[in-house]
Protein backbone atom coordinates (compact mmCIF):
# COMPACT_ATOMS: atom_id res chain seq x y z
CA UNK A 1 0.00 0.00 0.00
CA UNK A 2 1.44 3.35 -1.04
CA UNK A 3 1.70 6.01 1.65
CA UNK A 4 0.79 9.61 0.91
CA UNK A 5 1.59 12.50 3.21
CA UNK A 6 -1.10 15.18 2.96
CA UNK A 7 0.05 18.58 4.22
CA UNK A 8 -3.09 20.69 4.53
CA UNK A 9 -4.20 23.18 7.18
CA UNK A 10 -7.88 23.39 6.17
CA UNK A 11 -9.77 20.83 8.23
CA UNK A 12 -12.55 20.14 5.72
CA UNK A 13 -10.18 19.77 2.79
CA UNK A 14 -7.95 17.53 4.87
CA UNK A 15 -10.79 15.27 5.95
CA UNK A 16 -12.41 15.11 2.51
CA UNK A 17 -9.25 14.38 0.55
CA UNK A 18 -7.88 11.86 3.03
CA UNK A 19 -11.16 9.92 2.96
CA UNK A 20 -11.24 9.87 -0.83
CA UNK A 21 -7.61 8.72 -1.07
CA UNK A 22 -8.14 6.01 1.56
CA UNK A 23 -11.09 4.71 -0.45
CA UNK A 24 -8.71 4.37 -3.39
CA UNK A 25 -6.38 2.20 -1.30
CA UNK A 26 -3.80 4.71 -0.14
CA UNK A 27 -2.54 5.06 3.41
CA UNK A 28 -2.75 8.75 4.29
CA UNK A 29 -0.50 10.55 6.74
CA UNK A 30 -1.50 14.03 7.87
CA UNK A 31 0.41 17.20 8.68
CA UNK A 32 -1.26 20.50 9.55
CA UNK A 33 1.43 22.97 8.59
CA UNK A 34 4.64 23.22 6.60
CA UNK A 35 6.96 22.64 9.53
CA UNK A 36 5.08 19.51 10.62
CA UNK A 37 5.04 18.38 7.00
CA UNK A 38 8.82 18.53 6.78
CA UNK A 39 9.27 16.70 10.08
CA UNK A 40 6.79 14.00 9.13
CA UNK A 41 8.38 13.50 5.71
CA UNK A 42 11.75 13.02 7.41
CA UNK A 43 10.37 10.63 10.02
CA UNK A 44 7.92 8.60 7.91
CA UNK A 45 9.48 8.61 4.41
CA UNK A 46 6.14 8.62 2.53
CA UNK A 47 5.93 7.54 -1.09
CA UNK A 48 4.50 10.88 -2.17
CA UNK A 49 3.57 14.25 -0.68
CA UNK A 50 0.51 16.37 -1.46
CA UNK A 51 1.52 19.85 -0.37
CA UNK A 52 -0.94 22.69 0.05
CA UNK A 53 0.93 25.88 -0.76
CA UNK A 54 -0.87 28.25 1.63
CA UNK A 55 0.22 26.85 4.97
CA UNK A 56 0.90 28.34 8.40
CA UNK A 57 4.26 28.29 10.22
CA UNK A 58 6.18 27.74 6.95
CA UNK A 59 4.39 27.78 3.59
CA UNK A 60 4.33 25.01 1.04
CA UNK A 61 7.01 26.58 -1.15
CA UNK A 62 9.51 26.80 1.70
CA UNK A 63 8.60 23.33 2.97
CA UNK A 64 9.19 21.90 -0.51
CA UNK A 65 12.53 23.68 -0.86
CA UNK A 66 13.59 22.24 2.51
CA UNK A 67 12.58 18.73 1.50
CA UNK A 68 14.30 18.92 -1.88
CA UNK A 69 17.48 20.22 -0.27
CA UNK A 70 17.80 17.20 2.00
CA UNK A 71 19.35 13.94 0.83
CA UNK A 72 16.85 11.87 2.80
CA UNK A 73 13.72 13.52 1.40
CA UNK A 74 14.65 14.94 -2.01
CA UNK A 75 13.57 11.78 -3.77
CA UNK A 76 10.00 11.94 -2.49
CA UNK A 77 7.72 13.30 -5.23
CA UNK A 78 5.76 16.41 -4.25
CA UNK A 79 2.49 17.54 -5.85
CA UNK A 80 1.61 21.16 -5.08
CA UNK A 81 -2.05 21.84 -4.32
CA UNK A 82 -3.38 25.37 -4.47
CA UNK A 83 -6.54 27.34 -5.07
CA UNK A 84 -4.50 29.98 -6.89
CA UNK A 85 -5.00 29.57 -10.63
CA UNK A 86 -2.36 31.72 -12.34
CA UNK A 87 0.34 30.16 -14.50
CA UNK A 88 2.86 32.06 -12.36
CA UNK A 89 1.67 30.02 -9.36
CA UNK A 90 2.49 26.84 -11.22
CA UNK A 91 5.91 28.21 -12.18
CA UNK A 92 6.59 29.19 -8.57
CA UNK A 93 5.69 25.69 -7.35
CA UNK A 94 7.92 24.01 -9.93
CA UNK A 95 10.79 26.38 -9.15
CA UNK A 96 10.48 25.40 -5.47
CA UNK A 97 11.06 21.80 -6.55
CA UNK A 98 7.55 20.40 -6.86
CA UNK A 99 7.25 17.50 -9.26
CA UNK A 100 3.71 18.38 -10.31
CA UNK A 101 0.93 20.83 -9.57
CA UNK A 102 -2.85 20.66 -9.23
CA UNK A 103 -5.47 23.31 -8.60
CA UNK A 104 -8.32 23.31 -6.13
CA UNK A 105 -11.11 22.40 -6.21
CA UNK A 106 -9.56 19.00 -6.79
CA UNK A 107 -10.80 16.82 -9.61
CA UNK A 108 -10.03 13.45 -8.11
CA UNK A 109 -9.52 11.48 -11.32
CA UNK A 110 -7.01 14.06 -12.54
CA UNK A 111 -5.14 14.08 -9.22
CA UNK A 112 -5.08 10.28 -9.04
CA UNK A 113 -3.56 10.19 -12.52
CA UNK A 114 -0.76 12.49 -11.40
CA UNK A 115 -0.20 10.50 -8.21
CA UNK A 116 -0.04 7.21 -10.06
CA UNK A 117 2.31 8.59 -12.71
CA UNK A 118 4.76 9.87 -10.10
CA UNK A 119 4.58 6.68 -8.05
CA UNK A 120 5.25 4.63 -11.16
CA UNK A 121 8.27 6.77 -12.03
CA UNK A 122 9.45 6.45 -8.45
CA UNK A 123 9.13 2.67 -8.52
CA UNK A 124 10.65 2.28 -11.98
CA UNK A 125 13.70 4.35 -11.16
CA UNK A 126 13.91 4.20 -7.38
CA UNK A 127 14.01 1.62 -4.63
CA UNK A 128 10.61 -0.02 -4.92
CA UNK A 129 11.29 -2.37 -2.04
CA UNK A 130 11.80 0.55 0.29
CA UNK A 131 8.65 2.46 -0.59
CA UNK A 132 6.18 -0.28 -1.33
CA UNK A 133 4.18 -1.35 -4.31
CA UNK A 134 2.11 0.98 -6.46
CA UNK A 135 -1.62 0.30 -6.20
Amino acid at each position, binding site marked *: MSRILLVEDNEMNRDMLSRRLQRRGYEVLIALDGEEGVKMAQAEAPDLILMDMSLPVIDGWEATRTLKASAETKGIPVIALTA*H*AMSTDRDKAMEAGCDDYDTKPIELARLLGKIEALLKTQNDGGTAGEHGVVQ
Partner: protein
Amino acid sequence: MASTGDIQLRIPRQLLHDLRTPLSPILGYSELLIEQMREKGYEEFIPFLEKICAAGHQLNELLTNNFESETGDPAQDEHSGPATDC
Protein backbone atom coordinates in the same frame (compact mmCIF):
# COMPACT_ATOMS: atom_id res chain seq x y z
CA MET B 1 -29.74 39.67 -13.66
CA ALA B 2 -26.96 40.16 -16.21
CA SER B 3 -25.36 37.05 -17.62
CA THR B 4 -21.70 36.25 -17.07
CA GLY B 5 -21.19 36.94 -20.76
CA ASP B 6 -22.26 40.55 -20.26
CA ILE B 7 -20.17 41.41 -17.25
CA GLN B 8 -16.43 40.94 -16.88
CA LEU B 9 -15.94 40.68 -13.14
CA ARG B 10 -12.71 41.87 -11.66
CA ILE B 11 -12.09 39.45 -8.86
CA PRO B 12 -9.00 40.16 -6.77
CA ARG B 13 -6.60 37.26 -6.79
CA GLN B 14 -6.83 36.56 -3.06
CA LEU B 15 -10.63 36.71 -3.16
CA LEU B 16 -10.63 34.15 -5.99
CA HIS B 17 -8.45 31.92 -3.82
CA ASP B 18 -10.74 32.42 -0.82
CA LEU B 19 -13.87 31.68 -2.88
CA ARG B 20 -12.36 28.52 -4.35
CA THR B 21 -11.22 27.19 -0.97
CA PRO B 22 -14.68 26.19 0.34
CA LEU B 23 -15.62 24.84 -3.10
CA SER B 24 -13.20 21.96 -2.59
CA PRO B 25 -15.12 20.37 0.30
CA ILE B 26 -18.48 21.18 -1.31
CA LEU B 27 -17.53 19.28 -4.45
CA GLY B 28 -15.41 16.67 -2.73
CA TYR B 29 -17.95 15.67 -0.08
CA SER B 30 -20.84 15.60 -2.56
CA GLU B 31 -18.82 13.35 -4.91
CA LEU B 32 -17.82 11.17 -1.97
CA LEU B 33 -21.44 10.86 -0.85
CA ILE B 34 -22.56 9.99 -4.39
CA GLU B 35 -20.08 7.11 -4.40
CA GLN B 36 -21.18 5.90 -0.98
CA MET B 37 -24.91 6.20 -1.75
CA ARG B 38 -24.41 4.11 -4.91
CA GLU B 39 -22.49 1.48 -2.96
CA LYS B 40 -25.18 1.26 -0.30
CA GLY B 41 -28.07 1.33 -2.78
CA TYR B 42 -29.54 4.65 -1.60
CA GLU B 43 -30.26 5.74 -5.15
CA GLU B 44 -33.00 8.21 -4.17
CA PHE B 45 -30.47 10.64 -2.64
CA ILE B 46 -28.13 10.70 -5.60
CA PRO B 47 -30.01 13.26 -7.76
CA PHE B 48 -29.87 15.80 -4.91
CA LEU B 49 -26.17 15.26 -4.42
CA GLU B 50 -25.59 15.56 -8.16
CA LYS B 51 -27.38 18.93 -8.10
CA ILE B 52 -25.08 20.15 -5.31
CA CYS B 53 -22.08 18.94 -7.27
CA ALA B 54 -23.25 20.54 -10.52
CA ALA B 55 -23.93 23.85 -8.77
CA GLY B 56 -20.42 23.78 -7.32
CA HIS B 57 -18.88 23.14 -10.73
CA GLN B 58 -20.99 25.94 -12.18
CA LEU B 59 -19.70 28.34 -9.57
CA ASN B 60 -16.11 27.23 -10.19
CA GLU B 61 -16.51 27.78 -13.91
CA LEU B 62 -17.98 31.23 -13.27
CA LEU B 63 -15.00 32.15 -11.12
CA THR B 64 -12.52 30.77 -13.66
CA ASN B 65 -14.11 32.39 -16.71
CA ASN B 66 -14.50 35.80 -15.11
CA PHE B 67 -11.15 36.12 -13.36
CA GLU B 68 -8.89 38.68 -14.88
CA SER B 69 -5.18 38.85 -14.14
CA GLU B 70 -3.41 42.06 -13.27
CA THR B 71 -2.47 42.33 -16.91
CA GLY B 72 -6.09 42.13 -17.99
CA ASP B 73 -5.67 38.73 -19.64
CA PRO B 74 -7.91 35.88 -18.57
CA ALA B 75 -6.20 33.43 -16.22
CA GLN B 76 -4.83 30.45 -18.11
CA ASP B 77 -6.44 27.73 -16.03
CA GLU B 78 -5.70 24.37 -17.59
CA HIS B 79 -8.20 22.80 -15.25
CA SER B 80 -11.34 24.75 -16.18
CA GLY B 81 -14.00 22.82 -18.02
CA PRO B 82 -17.24 20.92 -17.62
CA ALA B 83 -17.94 18.88 -14.56
CA THR B 84 -16.92 15.26 -14.86
CA ASP B 85 -17.20 13.74 -11.38
CA CYS B 86 -20.86 14.41 -10.61
